[in-house]
């Protein structure tokens, strides 16, 4: 199994691990049976993601993609965060082994899930804005 240096770096020194108290949006995706669960916490002020944290149960790639995804959306507007694709996460990590691509999809969907929760809390139906939260194709 070949992980890039960047994946190993984000695995061994993950950025933004933990929880946010009074988070404005919390999303969780995956299941323990498949071996991957990501939980993402967002702090949002005036449509800007001012903080992002995560907790992940999963393999090296699952931890690294969670870490990278939080890095990529911090300081960004909600609109920009919604444009985050799994490909962007993979590219930022200098690639992932083919069997681990689904981890990047989980990271993308974890962000969308947390934003969906944010809209729900605001009393706004998230479905027209975010669409369905998808589990990666296995």
């Amino acid at each position, binding site marked *: *199994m070949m992980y890039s240096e960047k994946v*190993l770096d984000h*695995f*061994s020194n*993950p950025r933004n*691990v*933990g929880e946010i108290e009074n988070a404005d949006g919390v999303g*969780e995706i995956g*299941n*323990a*049976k*498949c*071996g*991957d*669960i*990501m*939980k993402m916490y967002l702090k949002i002020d005036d449509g800007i993601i001012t903080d992002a944290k995560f*907790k*992940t*149960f*999963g*393999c*090296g*790639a*699952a*931890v690294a993609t969670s870490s990278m995804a939080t890095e990529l959306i911090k300081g960004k507007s909600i609109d920009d965060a919604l444009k985050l694709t799994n490909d962007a996460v993979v590219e930022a990590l200098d690639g992932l082994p083919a*069997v*681990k691509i689904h981890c990047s999809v989980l990271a993308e969907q974890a962000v969308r899930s947390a934003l969906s929760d944010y809209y729900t809390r605001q009393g706004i139906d998230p479905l027209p804005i975010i669409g369905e939260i998808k589990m990666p194709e*296995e």
Partner: protein
Amino acid sequence: MEKKFIYADNAATTAVSEEVLNAMLPHFTKAYGNASSIYKLGRDAQKDVEKAREKVAKAIGAEPGEIFFTSCGSESDNWAIKGVAENMAKKGKKHIITSVFEHHAVLHTCQYLEKHGFEVTYIPVSSDGFVNPEDIKNAIREDTALVTIMYANNEIGTIQPIEEIAKICKEKKVIFHTDAVQAVGHVEIDVKKQGIDMLSLSGHKIHAQKGIGALYVRKGITLPNLIHGGAQERNKRAGTENVPAIVGLGVAIESATKNISEKAEIITPRRNRLIDGILKLPYTRLNGNRNKRLPGNLNISIEGIEGESLLLMLDLNGICASSGSACTSGSLDPSHVLLAIGLKHEVAHGSLRLSIEEDVTDEDVDYILEVIPKVVERLRSMSPVWEKMMKGESYE
């Protein structure tokens, strides 16, 4: 704490020993003859191949004429199972019995045969990792061609009741094959006394090189030819002999089977200390019976964490280990062995296998026991599964 390098994955592969390497080296540049050639260089190569065959035979209580060199344990398994299947199909016997937790070299071969008109019975195993010989007895039918049960499990190390199974097979006149890749060099094997008809073994698990194995086939059983061509391996497996590898296997197996009980006396207390040390962590369980297992093997499930992350963390600390997590198997399902002994998927994902030999010292054990709790704590602190467990919530 100073970082060390500790190799605790001998069930995956082993280093070629100096002794083996030294025996092999002349066969690359000086004694390089083709064992089929008529001149002295060739005859010497032939002699060395036969000497190695004697050593392999002696190590498992067989006759040299019953040993065939192969390229690996998987090849031996494939040849044994498909070979017997082909022979017995001609007699209308198209039923095979194996267990659910065999190595994939056996399971996938059986699945292949299922696609070609064979019926396979997969015997379940107990929660502590054993095949019940009674289940084999009950599964044997008029048309059973072969029973194949591993000697010791590669993941959880449990040693199977081979003699009892062999006895049942003999009574029922069914051929009994065992994949002994993990057992050779770690437990005493005598194919004659134990009544084993066929046995697969591998070189690289016992300090020979990768790419060499052997199959023992009891006299009286004739397998179809595996590779057609020259007259090598008594016409059964053509192809110029890999003389250096064969010589290396001979030396390796002689050395590995020389002092099995002495080695076990050194390794077992260290292994037990590892088990007890890791089990001090909450929400852990030992997989496989504690006593009837390979001396160097331990397999523990650590709940709330995932195996590949654990392996990467251990690697950062210089410890080489293995896991039954899906992520290390390249599929989504965790180890079929751990599922077979009744573990839930999420628990099987967080398993750790260590397989040690005498070179792992007491100090190394201390080091491993210092590293593992720290790594586990770190992974659990960032695990949403652990968080839910601690809150008493379901995470399924």
